[in-house]
């Protein structure tokens, strides 16, 4: 997706969180930022309304896709 942004170079970060240690991390949203520090600040500002025990961000381009919607997976 193309973004019209103030920053000349940005990355999209996926935001994951969980409310209890027994839970798995799950995707709660995303932020767009030019660097990791600002992404941390944005994720905390945007998603800290819940009482998460863990909140992490991952650059979306660090995710390795095996297959995506519309593509054939092994069970197709």
């Amino acid at each position: 997706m193309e973004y019209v942004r103030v920053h000349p170079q940005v990355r999209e970060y996926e935001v994951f969180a969980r409310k209890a240690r027994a839970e798995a991390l799950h995707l709660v949203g995303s932020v767009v930022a030019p660097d990791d520090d600002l992404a941390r600040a944005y994720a905390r500002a945007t998603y800290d309304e819940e009482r998460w025990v863990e909140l992490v961000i991952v650059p979306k381009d660090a995710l390795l896709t095996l297959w995506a919607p519309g593509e054939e997976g092994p069970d197709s």
Partner: protein
Amino acid sequence: MRYAEWCTAAPTLEADIAAAAMGLDDIGHSRVLYGCLKELDGEGDGEDRSYRNLAFLDRPWRAWSQFVAANVVLDTAFTLMIEALAGGKVEVLRTRLRKMLQEERYHYLHGHSWMKEADAGKAIAGAWREAVEWFGPQGSDVDELQAAGALSLTVLELRARLRERLDRPEPPISIDWSGWDQDRRRTSDGRIDQPTLDMIQGLAERRYMPGG
């Protein structure tokens, strides 16, 4: 308050949200600090209604660079003072200010990252001067409190830590300390306008109350 004024005017949606979140954080920090003051002011009546602020906050910021300067310089100076209080020997401050420092870490990340991108040199120099005025001159109350153990950092140590956090040398700053007001912690006159002060103190909202 000044952060909140930018919650629909920052350069990106994420920065809008961060401005609102940081403003809310700072309201919470004020409540904690006033609570501490009330406990420490055991013999006072707690009824001092006067208001003091840095000159940088007198008027709304007209440019994002001013937001960035306040965020990275003044907020970091504030954080350093809170660290010095939390590292001192006053028990109520040692125990209650930790969460504040956790939240301020994100203010720093926000301001420091924007400092690298925004053309904010002039605003940063102005904010830096006000941070130095806020710390005060050598040998004044801050150094006295440090000598007494209430603060863990001297004026010079606070200024050195500020340089370290901002990754840059202090700009040339010339202050005539003879005009420094210790209570207001500034050399210049001026103050915020009355409508803004009423809003901060919740007085402006009274008009929405039944019979208000």
